[in-house]
């Protein structure tokens, strides 16, 4: 099975050893991602303002709202145009206590809404160094902790990222 990590923020050379088939490294200069091996590019749309996200959904490959606001309009539009929400693990990893609990609650509710409205989501690591990288099994465990079933979490690191790579901008 091919595993993908669509958002890594450092040159992660040993991604094959970590169990991934392909990764995308964030490129600070052009604000796009680049497939580590194949030079393909993805566009991340990130904002906590729904009015900023809505008109730009069609252009984006990945969408992320750091606050995980429950906006049915955005989720419906993403489902309609086949766009994918990014669920990064790093914010959960770097927070603790009540902050982590609240963040996980918001993520969990957001994933529930995505599942209900048929929008896709991809779990990514957003790792900035080797200690923040996660193996596929670990990403699945985090997905399960966020309320996904094993199959949903598995799909979020296999089929969904693969479909983005196929229909990239």
């Amino acid at each position, binding site marked *: 099975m091919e595993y993908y990590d669509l958002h890594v923020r450092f040159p992660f050379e040993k991604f094959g050893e970590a169990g991934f088939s392909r990764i995308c490294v964030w490129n600070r200069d052009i604000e796009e991602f680049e497939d580590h091996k194949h030079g393909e590019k993805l566009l991340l749309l990130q904002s906590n303002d729904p009015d900023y996200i809505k008109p730009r959904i069609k252009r984006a490959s990945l969408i992320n709202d750091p606050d995980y606001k429950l906006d049915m309009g955005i989720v419906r539009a993403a489902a309609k145009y086949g766009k994918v929400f990014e669920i990064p*693990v790093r914010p*959960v*990893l*770097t927070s*603790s*206590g009540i902050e982590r609990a609240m963040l996980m609650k918001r993520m969990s509710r957001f994933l529930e809404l995505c599942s209900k409205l048929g929008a896709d989501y991809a779990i990514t690591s957003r790792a900035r*160094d*080797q*200690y*923040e*990288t*996660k*193996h596929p*099994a*670990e*990403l699945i*465990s*985090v997905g*399960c*902790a966020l309320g996904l079933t094993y199959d949903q979490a598995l799909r979020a690191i296999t089929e969904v990222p693969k479909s983005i790579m196929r229909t990239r901008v």
Partner: protein
Amino acid sequence: MGVKPTMREKRRYLGFRIEADGRLSGKEAEAGVLKGILSFIGELGFAKANPKLIRFDPESGIGILRCNVPKVERVQGALSLVNSIGGKKAAIRLLGVSGSIKKLGKKANKKAI
């Protein structure tokens, strides 16, 4: 007289490797792992999971943790989210889950630890 086999606590063994920014002693590793689980699944979850560090090798950073079957997924999630141990930057890599230590060793060896 013990309990019936059906009433026995069902356990799973989790193999893991700690990658840290420096050498960790057994006590540091145990404290870090258990603290990570406690902070993630809470006191009640911790009591139900009943995690215990069975062994830990400070040289290789490889260890075995035991917990109850219904809470395995939660414990796995908790281990994945540990980012520092004993004040050092660290990550816990899961090597495998098994019902016996012997089989866990075989699984871990297959992963070329």
